């Protein structure tokens, strides 16, 4: 008499991962859209909304066609550590009923795929903060397509796939995307901001709608539970731990940024508190499935110190126009988080991760290597993409278009009525 094999699919895990995918979608639209939208000048708000929204649309399509295959699919021969093949083109062999035991053994493979899709969506959307208020829309579309294909997919593959160089071969730890998403987007932002040069007439943002910034930041905090706790790909203790440390680090970071402002400029601001919270969310991302509450407090309190100094002192000194601080917050926050993972990861939380303070000193060096790889790769390829687009169709909006506003010049649309 045979026994029927147990169905590996777990209903609770599947429900949580699908929910998490929806939560991460909300981080891009409307979370990031409003967060960035409120921070630009009135005449450019729609460009932020449009780019975030269309990022969701464009990447969603590319992901199911070839993106998932390149990022998570098996790599072949020489390419295996760097990029996947097209084995899963159009989700061939990506099942809706059976799991992929390498990535998530208790949920349908397509559930994992759609969850990862939302990460691929938000990463290029983060970059738009650096070149806000001065890019042509047609150039932006090409940037997004090329960047997803030649930067995001390789980095995701290198850190997260079963044959990836940084993750699988070196053993770098990145629970939910500190390197893949935040450092990657942040350094790409810097590369494009440096390539394009400063906006005309100003290098300071013109914050036109602070309530939007707060709504956006709150949605980011809310959705990030899907980002981090969802990365446990199970409804269990690890997801719970990730949820708890995410909230804790974020809260600590919000307090810390407000404190920095109180000390250095005399008053704490809501934009500062929101910026701190976002920095905390970024920093806890790679560490969320590896650290405990103590570690998360250190991570949160310190990230705001680093990022605040970056945006308030270093950026004005060097004068680069990283408009909405994708580099200052996402790269620096992600870098701190990735290194902090090498410090504070404890086996007690996750047997797969142990850091310096847990007695595993080599992990820190592995984190450094992975950070260097991501930084150099992303910077160089992003710069090349900007160059190619600029030399073919031109990347920057014309000065007249920039002065009139990206909304009117690129979309023939006005956000707010002046007369009825």
């Amino acid at each position, binding site marked *: 008499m045979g026994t029927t094999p147990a169905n590996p699919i777990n209903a609770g895990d599947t429900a949580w991962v699908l929910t998490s995918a929806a939560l991460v979608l909300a981080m891009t639209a409307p979370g990031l859209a409003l967060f960035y939208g409120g921070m630009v000048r009135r005449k450019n708000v729609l460009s932020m909304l449009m780019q975030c929204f269309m990022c969701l649309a464009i990447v969603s399509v590319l992901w199911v066609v070839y993106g998932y295959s390149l990022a998570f699919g098996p790599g072949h021969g020489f390419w295996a550590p760097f990029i996947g093949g097209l084995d899963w083109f159009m989700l061939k062999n990506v099942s809706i009923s059976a799991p992929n035991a390498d990535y998530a053994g208790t949920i349908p493979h397509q559930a994992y795929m759609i969850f990862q899709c939302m990460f691929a969506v938000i990463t290029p959307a983060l970059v738009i903060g650096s070149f806000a208020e001065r890019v042509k829309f047609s150039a932006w579309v090409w940037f997004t397509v090329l960047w997803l294909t030649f930067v995001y997919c390789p980095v995701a593959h290198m850190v997260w796939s079963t044959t990836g160089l940084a993750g699988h071969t070196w053993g770098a730890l990145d629970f939910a995307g500190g390197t893949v998403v935040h450092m990657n987007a942040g350094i790409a932002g810097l590369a494009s901001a440096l390539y394009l040069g400063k906006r005309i007439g100003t290098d*300071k*943002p013109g*914050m036109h709608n602070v309530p939007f910034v707060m709504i956006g930041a709150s949605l980011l905090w809310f959705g990030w539970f899907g980002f981090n706790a969802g990365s446990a790909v199970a409804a269990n203790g690890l997801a719970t731990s990730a949820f708890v440390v995410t909230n804790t680090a974020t809260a600590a970071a919000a307090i810390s940024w407000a404190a*920095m*402002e109180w000390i*250095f*400029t005399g*008053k704490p*601001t809501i*934009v*500062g508190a929101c*910026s701190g919270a976002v920095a905390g969310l970024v920093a806890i991302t790679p560490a969320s499935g590896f650290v405990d509450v103590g570690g998360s407090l250190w991570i949160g309190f310190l990230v705001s110190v680093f990022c*605040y100094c970056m*945006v*308030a*002192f270093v*950026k*004005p000194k060097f004068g680069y126009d990283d408009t909405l*601080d994708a580099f200052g917050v996402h790269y620096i926050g992600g870098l701190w988080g990735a290194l902090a993972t090498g410090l504070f990861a404890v086996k007690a939380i996750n047997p797969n991760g142990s850091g310096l303070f847990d007695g595993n000193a080599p992990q820190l060096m592995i984190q450094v290597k992975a950070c260097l790889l991501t930084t150099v790769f992303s910077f160089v390829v992003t710069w090349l993409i900007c160059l190619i687009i600029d030399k073919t169709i031109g990347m920057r909006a014309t000065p007249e278009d920039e002065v009139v506003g990206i909304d009117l010049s690129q979309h023939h649309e006005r956000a707010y009525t002046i007369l009825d």
Partner: protein
Amino acid sequence: MKLVIAIVQPYKLEDVKQELYAANVNLITVSEVLGHGRQVGVDEFYRGVKETGNLLRKVRLEIAVNEDFVEPTIKAIIKGARTGKIGDGKIFVTDLPRCIRIRTGEEGSKAIG
């Protein structure tokens, strides 16, 4: 005919309007403006970096009047807007060569009131 332009504190607008109505001045145009005189604005910071500009919100009234209404209008505005503190505002009186009522085509003093 004169055009009386007054810049006043936004929170005094209601008082100014009531005084004008009491002085039988009922036709006014009001707009929101930014500006400063000797009243100092408040610094604004974005992520630790000081924003440029310390302009304050003000309200601008424009009132077209016949000659005999100039003094009553000025008195009414002062009565409604004065608090005695720096920032009360200013009144400008300029010549108004022509005034036309769109609905009827009337011109001059008849069109003002």
